[in-house]
């Protein structure tokens, strides 16, 4: 059994100013996830750990570093799924917690449900002792300024929509030493989104899906398009080698949406593909760290570095 972890930090026209930080961020998250696998941790542990690392990193639109909704507040979505049992946990529109992916895991492991939203999700977070942080702690000054700029010019979601802007949802997929697969995805959504807007990230089959019989996928990109084609599920329904590419192309043709996806098979094959200008991604298998940003870029580093 080959243990592999793949992570992404968003598929969009990542500006040069943050490209290094984005690539560094995904590399660190991939290393993090792999170290969990290497010491015998499960695929679920690995994807949670990798996504937590990116939630804590303000360069990504998840947890710390999230964008603001139209009210100037933070609403977070996340999902985690265990390919062995198809168990899943998701939260949508949860406010002001640092690690939504961990709350999603708690939904999966501590409730009879798959998804909690909004106030109910926050009540559950409180019940299990998860701390709520002030908005200013989670949001960067850069984001606050961008949000105000957009507000002034009434640049709503319609412009960010389907354009190459701000799709830096984060996610991870993994297969562990026992051949179990898992996925996790986390986001703060689209800047200036309507209050209560739920994108693809917490929706099972869209933002992520994991099944030991076929593999695990995590998606990023234009949320509404990903939803319309249930992208994660679509990738896993294809049995061809280039399932990710075929699915992304379908999304582009059928609903004119762009994005990216990472996928891992139960036997350890993996892919990281995107139809946007860039996607920050990284993968670790054996002792090699692979990563990229621009199309067709695939850099390599020895893990011991």
């Amino acid at each position, binding site marked *: 059994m080959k243990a592999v972890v793949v992570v992404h930090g968003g598929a969009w026209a990542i500006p040069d100013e943050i490209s290094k930080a984005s690539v560094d961020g995904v590399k660190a998250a991939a290393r993090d996830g792999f170290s969990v696998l290497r010491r015998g941790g499960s695929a679920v542990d690995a994807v949670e750990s990798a996504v937590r690392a990116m939630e804590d990193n303000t360069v990504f639109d998840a947890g710390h570093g999230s964008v603001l909704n139209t009210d100037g507040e933070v609403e977070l979505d996340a999902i985690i799924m265990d390919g062995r*049992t*198809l*168990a*899943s946990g*998701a939260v*949508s*529109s949860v406010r002001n917690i640092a690690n939504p992916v961990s709350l999603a895991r708690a939904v999966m492991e501590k*409730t*009879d*449900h*798959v*998804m*909690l*939203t*909004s*106030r*109910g*999700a926050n*009540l*559950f977070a409180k019940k299990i002792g998860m701390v709520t942080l002030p908005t200013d702690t989670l949001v960067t000054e850069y984001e606050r300024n961008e949000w105000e700029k957009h507000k002034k010019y009434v640049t709503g*979601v*319609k412009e960010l*929509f389907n354009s190459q802007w701000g799709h830096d949802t984060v996610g991870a997929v993994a297969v562990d030493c026992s051949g179990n697969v898992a996925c996790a995805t986390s986001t703060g959504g689209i800047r200036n*989104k*309507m*209050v*209560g*807007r*739920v*994108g693809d990230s917490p*929706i*099972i*089959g*869209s933002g992520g*899906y994991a099944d030991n019989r076929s593999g695990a996928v995590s998606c990023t990109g234009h*949320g*509404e398009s990903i*939803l*319309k*084609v*249930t992208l994660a*599920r679509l990738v896993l*329904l294809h049995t061809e080698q280039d399932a990710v590419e075929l699915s992304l192309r379908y999304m582009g043709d*059928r*609903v004119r949406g762009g994005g990216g996806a990472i996928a891992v098979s139960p036997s350890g094959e993996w892919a990281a593909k995107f139809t946007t200008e860039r996607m920050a991604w990284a993968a670790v298998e054996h002792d090699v760290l692979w990563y990229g940003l621009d199309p067709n870029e695939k850099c390599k580093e020895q893990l011991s570095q």
Partner: protein
Amino acid sequence: MLPVLVVHGGAGHIPDDRAELACSGLCSATRVGYGVLQGGGSAMDAVVEVVTQLENNPMYNAGCGSVLNAKGEVEMDAIVMDGKTLASGAVSAVRNIANPVQLARLVMDKTSHVCLTAEGAGRFARAMGVPEVPGHSLITDYSRMRWEKNLAPDANPVECQMGKMGTVGAVAVDVEGNVACATSTGGILNCMEGRVGDTPCIGCGGYADNKVGAVSPTGHGEAIMKVTLSRLILFHMEQGQSAEAASDLGLAYMKERVGGLGGVVTVDPRGHWAARFTSRQMAWAAAQQDTLHHGLYTGEHFTQNLDHQP
């Protein structure tokens, strides 16, 4: 063969004293929805109309008659999907409105989003001029009684309420060959506040694609989500299975893989349809050409002439 409308009023265990009303309510709603199609209305218009009828009928676990969450309040979910464009609208955990399916349609038609939740969905409703209704107007004596019973410490909410009152849904193909689906629910009795089931999750609580067909499910929500039941059934149809065979495959998989029971109504763009379930019962009805079909228990298939008004 076209148009066709297939409707369900929940899968599970409907007590005998409520069964007849559940079936007759479904039949009359189906007649109304089919009238929309016969008049040249779209598949989307028809599914929204029939689900609206069922939301307004206190017999079903949707709109008025919704089950109560742990706090004794009503939180509702709904979805619509248009098979032509794959456009979709959904609301989750919405309160104090009579017709969540209509709000879901507004999300699809009037926003650039696919799903709105909770307070945001409520705010959108007000912005659209959707009337706010007091919570108690959605609560029936029956749903309150079920809720109180379930507060007993040894009650198992999933068993206790499986389809005793049902999620509602519909699929349709109109004269132009466009397909659509709609599903609406009050969720699971005594569930945690903010619990979201399959209904508003695209691919789970419904899916519609002109190239393949449309599905609306009912049953154990968490199980439907884990197997993305609607998308799965349509996948089998893409592989060449009939609506009926694909539905059975999907339901069997859900039972085998995650131990969940439920039912679906399914249609393909040529008008072949199926109403299939692994639960003990599913109230269903279908209208096509001059015939109204309906059933409740496994194997039942009654027909009536559509011109016959009971």
